């Protein structure tokens, strides 16, 4: 390239390359500081903690912004997950935020107006589980265009595998159930994807919906055969625990009986967060590979894709298998986290809930599932709080008489409004916000 | 019902799809009772022109950014497509676009959708069958099963059912045998002369279109490149080179031809990546 052979000062400043140490420094900072804060600031005032958090967030983001390669990128740099300064800043800040969040939520802070701090930790954990499942669902229907309504069937499959492997065989070994569910999900998912080789759109949707009902039958039969109507109990003696040979790990100190049971929101967070983040990163990465680009090609026009040498059948089945494997894993996590699964744990409303999540979050954006599921779980909580505490809402009897119905109506209206006016959902809004922020920051630069 | 045509006046028309400009300050005039052809290669903006006149851009997420379209001195921009058909614009869409599951007769009747005088419809149907006698035995056939030439006849007949003051034909010659295209153009000339209907023909097949039309425009990357009478254009070396196959002084390549004010974004910008 001519610019490299004959660099002018202008171009030199444009092609900036950070050293490897600089590249990773913001992320290392973001990962380490929360634990230092968590260990050292035990009885500090909440507001001090919040202030420190904000400052560190800003510093980490600023460093990531500063130490991003700029100018003409090599192919390798271009293919990086976090490519632009703003991507890297947000990634570093998110890393920090995710790690510092449990410490903040676990503190005994009481916000003004009785904001329900304690219950929000549970909501955060639910958001993590749902985000994982919804992201996988979105990978299939949004990104790969293989319309399926069978995802709740795979949540049920996750519960079945969790019941067989995690409860009946090993008495609470979730760690064994997770990979087993992934394998079972992939196999059954590929089978459930077989109709996709022949059917499209509406007909595929109906076929997968048929699969949903078949799976529901299997679930009910399984329950009645081994557990009866009470359902499977995943808590108590069946709670997952950390094996004794791992007790040396920092932050793990066993109970009196020498066990470390995963119970309580704080411990669960440290199980759920890494699994969710890793699986979402994994999916985002799959989408960037050759295989992932094939998904999009098949979605847009499968005949043309096959002319390009893409093995359409393989690509479709792979999308089904991958998505189903991850949904099944989230099914295992949900079973163990919620603690029990019964006959009516899965129904058509659950299918709708996931649809609501991916629409609100942003159709065809894998990350959008996080926004969607956060919104889905926080909206009722916030609304509940508003009904009890906000003076201008509290006095409206109508709202307190029909809380869950109004939640449902709001969700319905949101789905309709978002699809009508902002089809990329919250993820689209977030992207707009980032672009706006990037532009206004750039404008202030000399 | 109405005999004679209306004039179409397009001024400064600019159309965008998302961020992509498809038509850029286009001025085209079809005089009352005139026969005008618009030539252009693929992607020149011909179909966009038709969609703007017939107000179908919304189905393709396009919109008119500026300009005016007047039919008989009355602005038709912003009117809905059914109203525009009522105003007297009928079209033969690109690729014929028959209703494949309807019979030929039903297809023809659909062309009369905008007509208020129910009694006149049968008369128009009869007129059409006189124009295309081949269609008479096919009336109850499903349109999707006809041959290309027959389909095109149905498409022209369907457009004529609304007794238009302006008939727009988009790519009449697409995928048809030269003989049939020739015949269709003769029919258009006949309609133009006997009924006085204004005709706007959008074509890639320049030689045939220039034979029949009075005025012609060449559209290139969304702009009017050349305009004049059909005879002028036939003599124009650039038109000969690009559309009539050789003759004139040889331009070595398509790109070597200097285009007045060609679009900067045709080369400078990356094409937008399609997302969904």
């Amino acid at each position, binding site marked *: 390239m001519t610019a490299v052979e004959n660099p002018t000062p202008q171009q030199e400043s444009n092609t900036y390359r950070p050293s490897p140490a600089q590249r990773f420094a913001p992320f290392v900072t973001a990962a380490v500081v929360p634990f230092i804060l968590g260990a050292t600031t035990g009885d500090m005032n909440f507001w001090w903690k919040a202030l420190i958090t904000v400052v560190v967030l800003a510093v980490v983001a600023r460093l990531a912004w500063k130490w991003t390669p700029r100018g003409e990128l090599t192919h390798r740099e271009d293919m990086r997950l976090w490519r632009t300064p703003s991507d890297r800043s947000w990634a570093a800040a998110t890393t920090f935020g995710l790690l510092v969040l449990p410490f903040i939520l676990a503190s005994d802070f009481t916000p003004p107006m009785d904001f329900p701090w304690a219950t929000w930790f549970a909501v955060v954990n639910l958001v993590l589980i749902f985000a994982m499942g919804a992201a996988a669902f979105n990978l299939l229907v949004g990104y790969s*265009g293989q*319309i399926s309504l069978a995802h709740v069937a795979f949540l049920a499959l996750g519960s079945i595998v969790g019941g067989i492997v995690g409860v009946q065989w090993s008495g609470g070994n979730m760690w064994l159930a997770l990979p087993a569910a992934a394998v079972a999900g992939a196999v059954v998912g590929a089978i459930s994807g077989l*109709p996709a080789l*022949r059917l499209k759109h*509406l*007909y595929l*949707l*109906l*076929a997968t*919906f*048929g699969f949903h*009902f*078949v799976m*529901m*039958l299997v679930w009910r*039969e399984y329950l009645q*055969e081994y557990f009866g109507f009470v359902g499977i109990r995943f808590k108590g003696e069946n709670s997952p625990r950390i094996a004794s040979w791992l007790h040396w790990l920092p932050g793990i100190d066993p109970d009196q009986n020498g066990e470390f049971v995963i119970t309580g929101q704080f411990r669960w967070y440290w199980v759920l967060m890494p699994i969710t983040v890793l699986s979402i990163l994994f999916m985002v990465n799959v989408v960037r590979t050759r295989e992932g680009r094939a998904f999009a090609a098949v979605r847009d*026009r499968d*005949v*043309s894709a096959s002319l390009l040498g893409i093995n359409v059948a393989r690509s479709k089945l792979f999308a089904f298998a991958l998505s189903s494997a991850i949904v099944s894993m989230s099914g295992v996590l949900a079973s163990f986290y919620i603690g029990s699964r019964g006959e009516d744990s899965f129904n*058509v409303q659950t299918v*709708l809930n996931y*649809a609501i999540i991916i*629409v609100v979050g942003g*159709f065809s954006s894998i990350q959008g599932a996080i926004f969607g599921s956060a919104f889905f779980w926080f909206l009722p909580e916030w609304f509940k709080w508003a009904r009890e505490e906000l003076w201008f809402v509290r006095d409206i009897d109508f709202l307190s008489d029909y809380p869950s*119905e109004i939640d*449902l*109506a709001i*969700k*319905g*209206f*949101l*789905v*309709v409004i978002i*699809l009508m006016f902002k089809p990329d959902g919250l993820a689209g809004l977030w992207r707009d916000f980032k672009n706006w922020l990037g532009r206004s920051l750039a404008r202030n630069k000399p | 019902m109405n005999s004679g045509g209306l004039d179409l006046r397009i001024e400064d028309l600019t159309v965008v799809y998302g961020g992509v400009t498809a038509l850029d300050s286009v001025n085209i005039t079809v005089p009352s009772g005139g026969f005008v052809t618009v030539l252009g290669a693929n992607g020149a903006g011909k179909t966009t022109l038709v969609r703007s006149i*017939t107000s179908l851009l*919304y*189905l*393709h*997420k396009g919109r008119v950014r500026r300009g005016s379209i007047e039919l008989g001195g009355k602005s038709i921009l912003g009117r*809905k*497509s*059914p109203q525009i*058909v*009522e105003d007297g614009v009928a079209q033969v*869409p690109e690729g014929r*676009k*028959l*209703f*494949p*599951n*309807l019979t030929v007769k*039903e297809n023809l009747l*659909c*062309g009369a*959708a*905008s007509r208020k005088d129910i009694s006149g419809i049968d008369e128009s149907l009869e007129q059409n069958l006189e124009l295309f006698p081949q269609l008479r035995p096919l009336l109850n056939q499903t349109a*999707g099963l006809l041959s290309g030439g027959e389909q095109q006849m149905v498409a022209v007949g369907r*457009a004529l059912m*609304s007794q238009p003051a302006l008939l727009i034909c988009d790519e009449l010659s697409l995928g048809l045998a030269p003989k049939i295209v020739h015949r269709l153009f003769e029919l258009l000339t006949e309609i133009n002369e006997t009924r006085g209907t204004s005709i706007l023909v959008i074509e890639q097949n320049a030689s045939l279109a220039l034979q029949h039309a009075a005025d012609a425009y060449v559209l290139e990357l969304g702009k009017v490149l050349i305009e004049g009478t059909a005879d002028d254009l036939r003599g124009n070396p650039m038109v000969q080179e690009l559309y009539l196959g050789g003759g004139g002084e040889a331009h070595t390549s398509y790109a070597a031809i200097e285009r007045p004010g060609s679009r900067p974004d045709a080369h400078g910008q990356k094409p937008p990546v399609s997302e969904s």
Partner: protein
Amino acid sequence: MLLAFGNFTADPSVNLQLLIGGLALGAIYAVVALGFVLVYKSTDVLNLAHGEFLMLGAYFALTFLISENLNFFLGVFVLLLVMLVFGLLVHYGIMRRMVGQGFFAIVLITLGIATIIRALLLIFYGPTERARLDLLPQGSFEIGGATVRHVDIIIFAVVAACVLLFFLFFKYTRLGLHMRAVADDIEAAAAMGIDPDKVYAMTWAAAMVMAGVGGLLFGHVTGAIDRSIEAIGLRAFPAAVVGGLTSLGGSIVGGLVVGVIEQFANGHLGTKWREPVAFSVMFVVLLVRPTGLWGRKDLERV
């Protein structure tokens, strides 16, 4: 997993009763399937909210015919009129903006509409269940040891009449022709001066009216009127698909076939097999003949 396959019976009167029950159920499925077909045929939208539309119809029937105690024919007229207005509302308020959007986005928006209707009905009618309607003749008679209810025969007659009416409408009226044209090719139809907007509005109105009829009929045979009756929308899917989603007559045939199969599965295998068997039948039909028994085959252009 032991499945009870044991109680097959050769007793003809039991099987006859199952057959008659299946036909009655099938008639209801046909009503619902006809609603799906109407919308799918002309707007290419799979309306997942049709069960909710039907629930709306049943509750309105409750209001106008029981609470307000209107004369039967006046009440039905008001019911259908209100449903028609709701249909126009669905189109002009929501679906109109969705023309040209992706298939799944439109499916999801109908799910959104379904959610709204369900929530609003719960708010305005409360969760308590109401007694089913009893305006149509309640008697029954016997054939060969099996009971046939009058209501079922009325339902079947009404569905057949509706299908015939719609068939004539599509075949012989101008608006019907225009609706078929829009279904074939919306852009060409618009270019011919047919207003797709108007046609779609009519379609939604017709579907809503059909749901009103369905709600009124279903309200007579359901156990009780409560929030669970929307499930009929989902359960009628196999019927709509087996008949072919683009065929009016197919909805009757599909409804009867699926109704009978479901009733036999119910009687011989047990209640839990009802839905899986119906959906399996649908699944097989989809694989063998995706457009259903009578559906139109669309060619795909590449």
